[in-house]
């Protein structure tokens, strides 16, 4: 048996306060207020073969979920594997991750979904819930087989990275996915507006002589997909929102009661396009880092509930893709091992309560994907223990991820996941909290 004692549990919609959590065979078997001397199982100290974790001074969260990652396997194992990606996930406090289908081969069929799930089981750390392709080969021409993909374990559909250009295909994808009760995750981008753009359109791009990507490149597609959401009544989740205009469009759609949800990534609420100067490929991603006004709109959108989810868009790349001319560099940064401290900063900045943060990092993604997270009797024992006062400097060399492409290296942070428990097993223990 495993007992997490004296932690401050934050599980919005379920419990909040000091509780002891009893875990056996992967399940939570009891949750009792800390300090109660006895419960039906006896006091923890008297039960034989019990591992007791003293979580005094720690926060205990239901396991964090990152619904937008790239694990690169199969196909690009030199950047990341499912095993290294999952290891990075649990070191960052995530117990579940959703890998996007832009692998090689593309995850557009049952076999690849099976393969990903099998590899994840072998790795034995984080849970992996694959997102399968909207269209076969991510080509935007024909629908993937959603029924079979769902049966294999896919939890959503997305052509992430390759926006669905044809409105008609997007309409049918939404309708067809609705039949299986799964959401469509849309990478909203009008490629003809992105054109040869390398970073956010604006003064910084102009000063560096780089072609810009306008905000409208994202927001016109957000608006199109909202219209299709209205038409179909399907569940639409908008990935990596980066602009003020997108936030406003989503806010309006929600006011009208549409079934739209949205996510953003820590870099969009933390950084601006100034970070790209001078030609910093570690700040190159798609959508690009935007202006400070956009960053403010994203922060407000998180605060007022327009943006439901914080997801990392963890995108590992090696030096082959990043130590090159800026315009040749690949888009994307890794995020699994930096997301939690960057997100805790939102609470420190009083933009939201800890409960709201857990909604964004656990409860809302779980609701969108149909996963169970309540820390209550009978549920899977997925938990994240966080030391909110732990101060440290981010050192990318120590990352569990295979890649090092982060703009946050050397940042001083406060708050860190110190233990991650998946399925009742301790899969990450930063500070050797285990005492038998």
């Amino acid at each position, binding site marked *: 048996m495993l007992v997490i004692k004296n932690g401050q549990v934050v599980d919005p919609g379920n419990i909040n306060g000091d509780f002891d959590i009893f875990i056996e065979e992967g399940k939570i078997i009891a949750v009792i207020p800390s300090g109660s001397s006895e419960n039906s199982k006896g006091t923890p100290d008297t039960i034989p073969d019990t591992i007791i974790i003293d979580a005094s001074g720690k926060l205990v969260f239901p396991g964090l979920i990152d619904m937008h990652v790239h694990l690169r396997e199969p196909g690009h194992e030199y950047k990341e594997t499912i095993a290294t990606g999952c290891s990075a996930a649990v070191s960052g406090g995530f117990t579940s991750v959703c890998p996007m289908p832009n692998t090689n081969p593309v995850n557009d069929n049952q076999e690849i979904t099976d393969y990903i799930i099998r590899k994840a089981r072998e790795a034995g750390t984080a849970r992996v819930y694959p997102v399968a392709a909207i269209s076969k080969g991510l080509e935007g021409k024909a629908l993937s087989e959603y029924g079979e993909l769902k049966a294999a374990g896919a939890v959503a559909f997305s052509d992430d990275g390759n926006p669905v250009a044809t409105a008609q295909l997007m309409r049918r994808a939404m309708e067809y996915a609705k039949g299986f009760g799964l959401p469509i995750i849309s990478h909203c981008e009008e490629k003809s507006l992105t*054109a040869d753009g390398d970073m956010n*359109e*604006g*003064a*910084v*791009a*102009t*000063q*560096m*002589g*780089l*072609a*810009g990507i306008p905000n409208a490149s994202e927001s016109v597609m957000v608006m199109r997909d909202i219209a299709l959401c209205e038409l179909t009544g399907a569940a639409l989740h908008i990935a990596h929102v980066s602009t003020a205009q997108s936030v406003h469009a989503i806010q309006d759609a929600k006011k009208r009661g549409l079934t739209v949800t949205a996510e953003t990534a820590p870099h969009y609420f933390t950084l601006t396009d100034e970070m790209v100067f*001078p*030609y910093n490929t570690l700040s190159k991603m798609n959508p690009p880092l935007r202006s400070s006004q956009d960053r403010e709109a994203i922060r407000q959108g998180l605060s007022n509930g327009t943006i439901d989810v914080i997801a990392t868009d963890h995108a590992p790349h090696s030096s082959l893709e990043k*130590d*090159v*001319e*800026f*315009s*040749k560099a690949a888009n994307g940064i890794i995020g699994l091992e930096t997301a939690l401290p960057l997100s805790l900063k939102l609470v420190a900045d009083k933009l939201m309560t800890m409960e709201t943060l857990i909604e964004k990092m656990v409860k809302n993604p779980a609701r969108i994907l149909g996963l169970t997270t309540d820390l209550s009797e009978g549920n899977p024992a997925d938990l994240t223990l966080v030391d909110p006062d732990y101060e440290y400097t981010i050192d990318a060399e120590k990352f569990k991820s295979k890649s090092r492409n982060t703009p946050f290296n050397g940042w001083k942070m406060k708050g860190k996941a110190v233990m991650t428990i998946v399925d009742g097993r301790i899969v990450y223990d930063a500070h050797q909290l285990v005492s038998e």
Partner: protein
Amino acid sequence: MEFQQKNILDMASLSADDIKLILDTAETMKEISERPIKKVPTLRGKTIVLFFYEPSTRTRLSFDIAAKRLSADGIALSASTSSMVKGETLIDTARNLVAMKPDLIVIRHSAAGAPHMLARMIDVPIINAGDGMHAHPSQALLDILSVRERKGSVKGLKVAIIGDISHSRVARSNIIGFTRMGARVTVCGPPTMIPKGIETLGTSVTYDMDTAIKNADVIMMLRIQKERQAAYLFPSEREYAAIYGLTKEKLTHARPDVLILHPGPLNRGVEISPDVADGPHSIILDQVTNGVSIRMALFYLLIGGARNVGD
């Protein structure tokens, strides 16, 4: 005053004092090109690699001649004849170059920031001979020199830069350079060719050619590239020439002693009419002549040591 820069990457990293020193040095270099024997031994034994990833005639030749006039060994390398075609990365190519101990590398590259990346990775002085749409510092320096030569000073002059500002590294470098030397710069073109936030470089913006030209002391016309039509930047050369082309008629709004510049190559009859290009206000060929002096000055200041130019 001593020159403190290790590289010439862009105009933004040069102070007004740096620019003045480069121009003054270039003026002393000019005389060398007018001698019957156009060569001094100043950079004898120095190796200068001219690394051109993008096609260039004028700029490459100008750097090459500048190196030869100072007795440096200039070696030109183009992307099509280098290992780049075999898929070697820029950094690997550069590290291999460095292993052969050059004293200076001049690089032109289609990617903005490529010279900056090299400067971070290798220890050899670098001159940016044009990187994407970003910067072309030696061009701006020769433009400023050409104007200063005619006007005595650029301070207080009204400079109009007209054409495709978005895609122009010449425009960006000249906006910064002329502004730093005290001129007032206005850029002009159709809104499709004016990049967002260009004002932050210190220029004003107008879409109206007559407004741009009115009372201008200096007009710089930029080459219009036909392939930009495909990106919907303008409908036709015909319309472009009619609205944004510099003709004798439009020139009547400028000051009578206006100077006309063009970085070349010219599209005669499109952005500039032949009579203006060849007319009395044009200093287009001065620019070419001064280009050699500027590049000699840059070589001298970066790797010339304490040696006197004249000896």
